[in-house]
């Protein structure tokens, strides 16, 4: 875009003045002007946990945004699904705090490390031994989430029976085919 002027914040602690900060126990409706500016001009996205001990930012658009219905996501979050944004690890910066992590073993021998805040338990991101260069940001941990656009449902075969999915997005029984598996 020709007007794609980099206008980046120095840190997540320094939001622009017209930015409605939906952070720390607030759920104020987000300011339209700020959302538009973020969508058009900024490629940095900030997030953290609920208590504020952990803060991160990443640069660029997510590779994939998905609703995950796997039992491990359900187990760890206590919610029927989690919404994740896959990003390159190289675009991710941890600005504050050190999340605790726990290794969730998968059936195929790989594992998922789930990183969360040890103070408030907020889920922040996951990393995968199978895809070490990728991180999965938990959408609920983002400060400004209007850019989030989930495109698929994954691990639908472990979806809870009482959860209805009629949003028209494609559904995959397990992981979607990726890399060399995709034909």
């Amino acid at each position: 875009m020709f007007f794609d002027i980099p206008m980046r914040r120095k840190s997540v602690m320094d939001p622009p003045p017209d930015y409605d900060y939906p952070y720390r126990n607030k759920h104020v409706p987000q300011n339209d002007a700020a959302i538009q500016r973020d969508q058009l001009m900024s490629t940095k996205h900030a997030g953290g946990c609920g208590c504020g001990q952990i803060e991160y930012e990443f640069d660029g658009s997510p590779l994939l945004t998905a609703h995950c219905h796997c039992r491990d996501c359900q187990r760890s979050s206590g919610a029927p699904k989690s919404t994740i944004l896959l990003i390159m690890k190289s675009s991710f910066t941890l600005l504050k705090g050190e999340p605790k992590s726990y290794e969730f073993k998968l059936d195929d021998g790989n594992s998922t490390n789930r990183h969360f805040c040890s103070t408030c338990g907020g889920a922040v991101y996951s990393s995968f031994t199978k895809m070490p260069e990728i991180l999965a940001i938990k959408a609920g941990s983002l400060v400004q989430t209007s850019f989030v656009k989930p495109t698929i449902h994954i691990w639908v075969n472990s979806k809870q029976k009482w959860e209805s999915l009629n949003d028209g997005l494609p559904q995959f029984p397990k992981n979607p085919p990726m890399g060399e598996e995709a034909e």
Partner: protein
Amino acid sequence: MNESLQSSGGCYCGQIKFQVKGEVFVSTYCHCRQCQQSTGGAGSCLSIFKKGAFNVIKGSPKEYQYANVIGHAMKCYFCGMCGSQIYTDLKNHDPLVAIRATAFEDPIWVQPTNHIWVSAKQSWDFISDDLPQSPEGLT
């Protein structure tokens, strides 16, 4: 559907186990910002029980205290080891306890009947059922 049931659950790593024996008061989807932040998703599904029906039978979950948007003191509990969310004490609805539905081993009996805190719902969180929606919490 308020029949008496016995069900157990816990965290992923097995440090925390709990049991409920009694009636489900209500099961509800919650879209509040705290549920979004603690689960990392669009919200959670809570099964609400009377406190007497709920027992932690193994381990002691870590406590996190916060005030919700309308100023009620809330305490949520999670496993300090694996970070699994377990339950929330509803201080404004004492003596009720809101258990995360998917923390149960087999949450097949869960029947969500409404959506709460829809005012805080994210734009990408698409509600695809016809359950009643309330902008705020349970009354």
